[in-house]
């Protein structure tokens, strides 16, 4: 594909947040999206870990893009991603041990998060480092937005509080008579929340599109 036809850094950054949002548009990274969004703290930690891996992988792959040809590129992508995931896993175990225990197998599973290998293939392997970095940051912010939006709904409905951790009871959002919707802490609640929010996002997109068409 000709370089001139590919989006630049500003477009890559902007698209990653909303138009190409990895959660609501690309539907990538669904496993951690559903699994770790029972609490806001877990969601933010997972988004931060994924952001680190995505940014570093994009930088490395972009730097090596002219050497990558043929079938070995997937091997290089996987090796790069696995290295940074291992680094993140070790750092979490060393400095955020309780959170690492809570996230459990989902941190090592970042290796198979399709957002990362997709961005390596679609952007980093074809465009310079600056564009790849902007793309990674945009997609990371988009993923963070996706996780936070789901985590806020689930945590508030499940506990009536937000920012709940082991040592902090959280800020009360709903009145004390609110019955805890424990279903929101489990897989069923995750799917329901994701489905409803995705429906709302699609509805807003359709309305925006139709208002643009009517203006033109």
């Amino acid at each position, binding site marked *: 594909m000709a370089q001139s036809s590919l989006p630049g850094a500003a477009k890559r950054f902007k698209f990653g947040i909303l138009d190409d949002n990895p959660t609501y548009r690309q539907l990538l990274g669904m496993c951690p999206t559903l*699994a770790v969004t029972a609490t806001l703290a877990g969601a933010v930690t997972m988004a931060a870990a994924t952001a680190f891996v995505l940014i570093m992988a994009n930088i490395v792959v972009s730097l*090596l893009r002219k*050497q*990558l*040809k*043929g079938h*070995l590129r997937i*091997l*290089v992508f996987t*090796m*790069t991603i696995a*290295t940074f995931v*291992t*680094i993140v896993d*070790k*750092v979490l*175990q*060393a*400095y955020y*041990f309780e959170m690492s*225990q809570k996230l*459990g*197998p989902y941190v090592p599973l970042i290796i198979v998060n399709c957002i990362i290998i997709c961005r390596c293939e679609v952007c980093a392997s074809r465009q310079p480092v600056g564009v790849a970095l902007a793309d990674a940051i945009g997609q990371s912010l988009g993923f963070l937005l996706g996780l936070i939006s789901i985590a806020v709904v689930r945590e508030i409905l499940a506990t009536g509080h937000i920012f709940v951790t082991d040592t902090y009871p959280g800020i009360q959002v709903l009145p004390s008579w609110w019955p805890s919707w424990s279903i929101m802490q*489990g*897989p069923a609640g995750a799917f329901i929340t994701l489905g409803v929010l995705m429906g709302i996002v699609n509805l807003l997109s359709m309305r925006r599109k139709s208002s643009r068409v009517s203006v033109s």
Partner: protein
Amino acid sequence: MKKGYLVQAWLVLVLACVFGVALAYVSSFTAPRIEKNIKSLIATKLAEMFGEGTETANPIIIQAVIEGRSKKIPCYPAIRNGNRIGWGILAEGKGYDTLTLLIGVDEQVKVLKGYRVIKSLETPGIGSKITKPFFYKQFEGQDATKPLIPVPPGKRCARQEINTISGATISSKGVTTTINENLAAVRDKLLEAISKEGK
């Protein structure tokens, strides 16, 4: 074409070396902290099994053979009011994936105080139920000198029998197998080490 493949093979090898060095560097400053965190976790889990105020100290390392493989099994003392009241045996085994359990036994390695999961990659929501009290409470008070027998869920349990978790048979049996194998391998050697200490 051949030359291109050779160039790529070198690239992969160089990357492997560079990444290996990077991981070794990260491991050098994270490994001590991770070990400290795990020790702190073990102390917390021992307190859950032996009662509040239980502390631990440096483990006795038992060299044992399990399934034909030589392993070093750390046995952490459970200490309360300056007296050793039991042991926490850090055991590795296999459920659906690798399991690391802390097996609590009394000072004479005769009575099981239970177990707690230190590390588990079991399927969340299914195999991960091995961390729940409804399952691990079955192990408390069992005879540590005889093997535990997994039986189907709902069956009335005789002594030494453990109801497996419905839908998580592999994980449940993994726990009982891990406990049986590690206790059998460690018991005599740990008692020998204790008697040597006393002399």
